[in-house]
């Protein structure tokens, strides 16, 4: 779907999600069933409305796109078969690409720390994830009570499981996160 008359942001959304936000008729079912809606600034149907009105900046700066838990309750209930969860994914990706500061820094720092573990080891490494997240956010004492039990029970390993093909994984992540996906 390429059209010279559409705004590049909406074109990008359509390309990333294979769906057109114009199909949403604002019934609000997504927001009614959203388990995280109480923590959002804008309800999911409002984020879609911003897009429909061309207010891309409002949508890209919304907290909702970062606090969406990706549970897909909205997507599975939409009477128009629109998938708001996919839209949230796309908006996060576009916000980062356009250099828009995330309205919720913790979530982005968590994902960054998580991807760092995969880059370095090919797999997630929980101790490294917690270390990188704490260093990035300055929340050094978070979960300090749960950590010793988890380590004693051997649930958090002290060394990462490194795979053989780590170099390749690193290059895959670097290329995918930097470049355009479509």
């Amino acid at each position, binding site marked *: 779907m390429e059209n010279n008359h559409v705004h590049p942001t909406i074109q990008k959304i359509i390309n*990333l999600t*294979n769906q057109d936000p114009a199909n949403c008729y604002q019934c609000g079912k997504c927001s009614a069933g959203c*388990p*995280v809606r*109480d*923590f959002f600034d804008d309800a999911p149907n409002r984020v879609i409305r911003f897009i429909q009105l061309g207010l891309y900046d409002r949508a890209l700066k919304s907290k909702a796109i970062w*606090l969406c*838990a*990706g*549970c*897909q*309750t909205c*997507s*599975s209930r939409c009477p128009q078969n629109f*998938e708001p969860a996919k839209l949230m*994914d*796309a908006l*996060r*990706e576009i916000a*980062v690409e356009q250099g828009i500061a995330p309205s919720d820094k*913790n*979530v982005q*720092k*968590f*994902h*960054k720390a*998580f*991807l760092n*573990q*995969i880059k370095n080891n*090919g*797999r*997630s*490494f*929980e101790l490294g*994830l*917690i270390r990188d*997240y704490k260093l990035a956010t300055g929340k050094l004492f*978070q*979960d300090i*009570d*749960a950590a010793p*039990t988890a380590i004693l*029970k*051997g*649930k*958090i*390993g002290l060394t990462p*499981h490194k*795979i*053989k*093909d780590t170099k390749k*994984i690193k290059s*895959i992540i670097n*290329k*995918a*996160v930097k*470049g355009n*996906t*479509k």
Partner: protein
Amino acid sequence: MNFGYYPGCSLSGTAKEFDLSLKEVLNNLDTNLQEINDWCCCGASSAHSASHLLSVALPARNLILAKEQGMKDVVAPCAACFNRLKVAQHEMKTDEHIRTKTEELLETKYSDGINVLNLISLFQHIGLDKIKSNIQIDLSKLNAACYYGCLLVRPHDILKFDDPENPTTMEEVVKATGAKPVDWNFKVECCGAAHSIAHTEIVENLSMQILDDAINHKADVIVVACPMCHSNLDMRQKNIIKHNPGRMKIPILYLSQLIGLSMGLDKKSLGLDLHFIDTTPLIASLSEKEVVV
């Protein structure tokens, strides 16, 4: 029976007991797992938060490895891994553009043909009769709330597994162990998933509602098939109780642990000592019950 195995990252870390109990149960059911050599992380929530392409490429790499290593059925016990593998498979099949991009990125060709199984469909494959015929301990007085969470059942169009609003397949497996599934409201509600670290308050709020509903419906235990659900309901339960004094505790078991209990397997070999919420009162209540065989 032989299956390919994609353990995923959690099962070698925080969900160690999921891996232990699954292998122990399968050993006793003459089923072998062959781990995919050099598998990588599926990217989980973080990959699809950062890049659509990456969220397809990482699982696709693992599917390619499984195929190269001669596998047909691959078990992904973690609900998130199961979900990402199935979604990637679907996108590679239906979206030519993403397929080309992914193949370019991985520098290899993709061909379909792996059957990805989750924990419940694995036991359906093995056969519920086999679970029934291995019962050693009477679980008939144990009320179990089957908790599916999000990623086993959504998106239904792609996963095509059970019903997205009122699934019942886990109840069938639980019935096969002799335990009693309870009727309750929160079986497909979200626990807050990957927000566990970045927004613990969200996870505690959502998980508390799930725990409360299970307790209100007289459940003695919540049974799960996802490491994220487990860590949110088990590890975070301590703080939930601390922040809301007077609440009851409820142990959280992996489905594989419950099956292992019904088979009379050693609790240590099932990793039942690795939980934050103590499982010993539950196990003690069972040992007092009449042994069937």
